[in-house]
C-alpha cells in the first residue's frame, strides 16, 4: 500500500522513520488511539464497558455460544428479522419517491404546490414516525416498515426532483429543434442526468432507513436488531448493548462502503468536468447523512 514498505531503505533508521510516516501507520495509529480512548472512557465511567468485555460478548453473539444461563447468541436470528422489514420499507420508499419526484420535477405547478410540503417532510425527525406508527398500529412488523418508508421516502423524492431539474435546458431545446426521437431523448438525456441523483437518493434512503428501522424496532417490536439493543439496555447489561450498537454500525458502514459508494461513483462517472468534485464529495462526508 505505501511505498515505504516496498522500497528497500538505505539505512535501517531512515527506513523506520519512513515507515512511521506512511499513511498505513497513521491508520493503524488511529485505531489504536480509538481503543485507548475507549479503555480510558470505561475507566472513567464504570457503566461503560471496556473493549475487551464488548468484544468477548460479540464473539459469543456471533458464534452462537452461550452467555451463561439460557441466554445464547442470536446474531443471525435478529438480523433475519430486521432485514425483510428494512428491504420492504426501502423498496416502498424508492417506488413512491421516484413517482412523486417525477411528478414534482416534471411540472411547474406541482413543484410550486408540493415542494414546501416535501421539504417539511425532509425536516421531520424519524422518531416522530416511530412514535406515531406505534400509537396507530401497535407492536408489529407494519409499524416498523411504515416508519422506515416514511422516513426515507422524502429524501428519494428530493433527489429525483433535483435530477430531473439537472437535465441541461440547452440540450433539451436542441433535441427539440433537431427532432430527436423521444426514446433517444430518454436514453441519452434524461436517464444519464437522473441516474446519479437516483443512486444518491438510494444511498440516502438506505442510511436514513437504517436509522428509522432501528428506532421503529426499539419502540414497537419484539425481535430484530433495534429490539435486541434495547433488550440489553433494559437488562442493564451494557456490554451486550454496546456490542449490538457495534453490530448495527458495522452493518451500515459495510453496506455503504462496499456497495453504495462505488455504485454512486459509477453512476456519476460520465460527468467529466465534475468528476473530481463529485468524487471528493462521495469520498468526504459532505453528502453523507447520519440518519436522525
Amino acid at each position, binding site marked *: 500500500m505505501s511505498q515505504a514498505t516496498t522500497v528497500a531503505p538505505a539505512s535501517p533508521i531512515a527506513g523506520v522513520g519512513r515507515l512511521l*510516516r506512511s*499513511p*498505513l*501507520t*497513521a*491508520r493503524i*495509529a*488511529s*485505531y489504536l*488511539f480509538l481503543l485507548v480512548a475507549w479503555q480510558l472512557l470505561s475507566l472513567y*465511567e464504570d*457503566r*461503560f464497558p471496556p473493549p475487551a468485555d464488548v468484544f468477548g460478548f460479540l464473539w459469543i453473539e456471533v458464534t452462537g455460544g452461550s452467555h451463561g444461563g439460557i441466554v445464547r447468541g442470536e446474531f443471525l436470528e435478529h438480523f433475519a428479522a430486521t432485514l425483510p422489514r428494512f428491504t420492504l420499507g426501502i423498496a416502498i420508499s424508492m417506488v413512491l419517491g421516484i413517482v412523486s419526484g417525477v411528478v414534482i420535477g416534471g411540472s411547474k405547478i406541482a*413543484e*410550486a*404546490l*408540493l*415542494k*414546501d*410540503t416535501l*421539504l*417539511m417532510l425532509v*425536516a*421531520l*425527525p*424519524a*422518531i*416522530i414516525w416511530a*412514535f*406515531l406508527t406505534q*400509537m*396507530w398500529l401497535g407492536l408489529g412488523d407494519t409499524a416498523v416498515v411504515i416508519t422506515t418508508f416514511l422516513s426515507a421516502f422524502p429524501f428519494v423524492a428530493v433527489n429525483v426532483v433535483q435530477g430531473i431539474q439537472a437535465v441541461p435546458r440547452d440540450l433539451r431545446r436542441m433535441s427539440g429543434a433537431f427532432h430527436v426521437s423521444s426514446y433517444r431523448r430518454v436514453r441519452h438525456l434524461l436517464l444519464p442526468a437522473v441516474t446519479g441523483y437516483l443512486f444518491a437518493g438510494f444511498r440516502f434512503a438506505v*442510511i436514513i432507513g*437504517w*436509522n428509522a428501522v*432501528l428506532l421503529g424496532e*426499539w419502540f414497537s417490536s419484539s425481535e430484530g436488531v*433495534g429490539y435486541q*439493543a434495547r433488550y440489553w*439496555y433494559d437488562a442493564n447489561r*451494557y456490554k451486550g*448493548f*454496546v456490542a449490538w*450498537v457495534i453490530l*448495527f*454500525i458495522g452493518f*451500515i*458502514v459495510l453496506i*455503504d*462502503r462496499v456497495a453504495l459508494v462505488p455504485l454512486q461513483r459509477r453512476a456519476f462517472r460520465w460527468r467529466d468536468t465534475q468528476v473530481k468534485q463529485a468524487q*471528493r464529495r462521495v*469520498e*468526504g*462526508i*459532505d453528502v*453523507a*447523512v*447520519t*440518519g*436522525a
Partner: protein
Amino acid sequence: MSSVPVARASRGGRPPSLVTRRRVRGIAGLVIGVGGFLLVWTLLSALIFGPFTLPPPSRIGSVMWEIVRSGQFIHHFVPTILRLAYGFGLALLIGFPVGYLMGTSRWWRAFFHDMTIVAGSIPGITYAVLALVVFGIKILGPILSVGLVSMPYVAINVAEGLDSVDHRLVQMSDAYGRRRASIVRNVLIPSVAPFAFAGVRLSFALAWKVEQLTEVFGSSSGVGFQIRHEFEDFSIPGMLAWVLLFVIFMILVERFVLAKLERYLFRWRLEDRP
C-alpha cells in the same frame, strides 16, 4: 393563480422585475400548497381516520398556541437551544484544529480519514443511546452528541478550505515580506471561512435532530423530553404540536438566520458557495 399579487405589484408604475414576479409566485405557491395540504389533512381526519387517530390541524394549532401562551415553549426551548449552541461550540473548538491538521499533513489526513468517513453513516440513534449510557440523563449527553455529530463536518470542510487556498497568493505575500500573522489573517482565514461555514450549515440540519433524539432517550428537560412525555401520555396532538413547533423553528433558523448570515459574511465573494 398569481395574477392578483402581480397586478398589485405593478401598480407602482414600473413593471415588476423578474425577481419580484418569481418571489410572488413562490409565496403564492407556498400559501396555496400549505393551504391545500392542511385541507387534505382536515378531510382525512374528518372522513377517514377520525379525530382521535389523526387530529385535525386546527386541534394541533390550538395546542401549539397553548404551549406558546403558557410559557412552556420558552421553558423547554431555551435549554434545547443552549445545548445546541454549546455542542456547536465544542464542534468548532475541536473541528478547527483537526481540520487544520488534515489540511496540512498527509499523515494526519490518513489518521482521521476512517473516523470521518464512518461518522458520516452512523445512525443518529447511536449517539443518542450511547450518550445515555455514558452520561445518564445529565445535560452533558445532548451537548456531546451535537458536538460529535457536527465535528467531522467542520473538520472535513476546514481541510477542504485549506486545500483551496491559492498558494501563489501565499508565495506573493511571502515575497513582499508580509508577516506570518498577516498572511493568516488576510489570506488563509478568508479562504477557509466559507468552507467552515458550509460545514456548520450542513451539520446543523443533522445536529438538531440528533440532539432532539438524545433528549427523547434521556433528558429531564427540553423539546425532545417533552415529545417523549406526550408519547407516554398517548397524546397525539401534544406530540405533533411539539414536533411541528420545533421543526418550524429550526427551518426558520436555517433559512433566515444561517443563510442570511452566510450571505452577509461572504458578500465579497463572487461565486455563491464553495
